[in-house]
């Protein structure tokens, strides 16, 4: 059982929805992003998604693209991202951390070495955008063997025929992408998302967490109420981009978390 499984078991027992937040590791610099990260659980975040910067984030909109660029310009690397996780784990051994990014930095590091390093650093799960089920042998299956969750994206284009394929080898939770599009784009609609979540629930017992297009406490509440929780990324990253202090970013996050938890 990973920290992710434990957290969802706990939320389920409490009858609570999950609030998941995304930040980019090293944006705008390591010190600031570590400070924000350390404050997230206190602001009500149940699961932390930590972005691994990549030069070519083909599923991300401008907000997260630029966050990755700021991090890379500041010298962020995979090894430094793992170090950030170790530093976080020094004071927090329970909050689940999901590393979210693209395959090439991991492939370049060497898959086996990466899994050893990630596990040792305290990462619990992976969301790798450019690894669909068709490429499960690359990382998904080795990651599960190493005791990490591999969290898959399901999207509006994942039809019923394909859904079982996407759900096989998925663990931790399912990340439902509320829109066809990139991060930071159109607003998610609870009326669209509700039936989609129900469709997935027919195929899996895993928690369904909805992301993309959630930017405000109200949307967080609406979306969380039709799923097991929601993710906010670009809206938080935009606060960091605007130069807000970690304290201000965290109070913004708290508003979103309260929204999701009121569902």
């Amino acid at each position, binding site marked *: 059982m990973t920290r992710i499984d434990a957290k969802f078991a706990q939320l389920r027992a409490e009858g609570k929805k999950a609030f998941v937040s995304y930040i980019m590791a090293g944006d705008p610099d390591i010190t600031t992003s570590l400070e924000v990260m350390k404050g997230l659980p206190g602001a009500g975040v149940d699961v932390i998604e930590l972005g691994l910067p990549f030069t*070519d984030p*083909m599923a991300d909109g401008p907000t997260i693209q630029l966050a990755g*660029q700021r991090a890379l310009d500041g010298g962020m690397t995979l090894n430094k991202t793992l170090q950030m996780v170790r530093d976080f784990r020094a004071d927090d051994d329970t909050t689940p951390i999901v590393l979210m990014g693209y*395959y*090439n930095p991991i492939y370049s590091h060497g898959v086996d070495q990466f899994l050893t390093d990630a596990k040792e650093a305290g990462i619990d799960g992976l969301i790798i955008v450019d690894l*669909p089920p068709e490429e499960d042998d690359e990382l998904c299956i080795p990651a599960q063997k190493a005791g990490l969750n591999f969290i898959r994206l399901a*999207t509006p*284009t994942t039809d019923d025929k394909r859904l079982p394929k996407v759900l096989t080898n998925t663990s931790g939770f399912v990340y439902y*992408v509320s829109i*066809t599009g990139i991060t930071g784009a159109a607003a998610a609609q609870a009326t669209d998302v509700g039936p989609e979540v129900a469709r997935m629930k027919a195929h899996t017992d895993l928690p369904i967490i909805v992301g993309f297009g959630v930017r405000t406490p109200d949307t967080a509440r609406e979306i969380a109420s039709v799923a097991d929780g929601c993710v906010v990324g670009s809206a938080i990253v935009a606060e960091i981009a605007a130069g807000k202090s970690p304290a201000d970013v965290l109070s913004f996050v708290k508003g979103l978390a309260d929204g999701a938890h009121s569902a």
Partner: protein
Amino acid sequence: MDDLVNSFMTGPDEKGRFGIFGGRFVSETLMPLILELEEEYERAKTDDSFWAEMDFLWKHYVGRPSPLYHAERLSERLGGAKVYMKRDELNHTGAHKINNVLGQIILARRMGKTRIIAETGAGQHGVATATVCAKFGLKCVVYMGAHDVERQAPNVFRMRLLGAEVVPVTSGRGTLKDAMNDALRDWVTNVRDTFYCIGTVAGPHPYPAMVRDFQSIIGKETREQMHEAEGRLPDTIIAAIGGGSNAMGLFFPFLDDKSVNIIGVEAGGKGVNAKMEHCASLTGGRPGVLHGNRTYLLQDDDGQILEGFSISAGLDYPGIGPEHAWLHEIGRAKYVSITDKEALEAFQLCCETEGIIPALEPSHALAHVMKIAPELPKDHIICMNMCGRGDKDIFTVAKHLGFDMSDTEGRTAD
């Protein structure tokens, strides 16, 4: 090599792999789309009416077959091998790109797609896509790196004349790879009506195989024409490589002819050195995953993708088609690099000896011909792919040669 493989022409496998290269490294949103495309392409491939339409348009719209031309004065000047050029620069729109675009657009029409998107570097693929879209009355959006919009201004105007929307890409570093990222982002957003027309043998399966198949008309014609002209196969075939589509098109029909030497020429920029001022993915990169496939990439120690550098906008891509990566690893084809300076010399020599203004991309292939031809016997036949004409490049070349285009006396700028 003979014992390992019976045929080099059977790839990719059912996972879209050539050896370990290729694959389908895309987000879940795109996965159903590329599966649908694969299905549709497999159907079209064995459908005579599809190829009948292609053949008709290749002949009457593109102007195929393109000639196979014995470059006599150039051969004489080099004093060795007999050099032939496959004249794909005579195609409508001035490059090989349209061979592939026609195939993809006919496929898009069969799939009921109404909006076509494309990425472009030099602008040749963008122009070809805008052209065929105009012909069929389809909406066309072309993503082009902001830097390339500047250095390939004539092609930008052409695309706009043809009714396409040209989107200057400023994300990332504003180059061809970023244009491809933005095209993929568009596709993820507009999944229902949009067809992504990729301009080279890269991207997720089935693109590398599909684009190769459409471009293979180059090699098929070359075989027949060479047979007519010389009664035999060429000894060496050479093509320039950006993503590798004109090269795959020439190479593919010859892969199982073991007597034929196959040479791909990458852009060496200022030289394949530690500073990475080049685009030679095979000579200066290592395997990685980008834009849906595993292949050789220019990247740093952390797996971050590096910008290429080349005088030629069409070769300025940090990756290479996965089939080339495989041919390189198994040794069936050899890959070399040519610097900007060498390409410029070849460009000038071709103008002076043959009355053909080549694009900067095939000038790289020609530069390698210049290197090897003098050492080869007179009965050694080389065929290089003259895959594009140089009209689009004259401003760039003028600048590099220090020529002031506004001076009617033709004096140099300094």
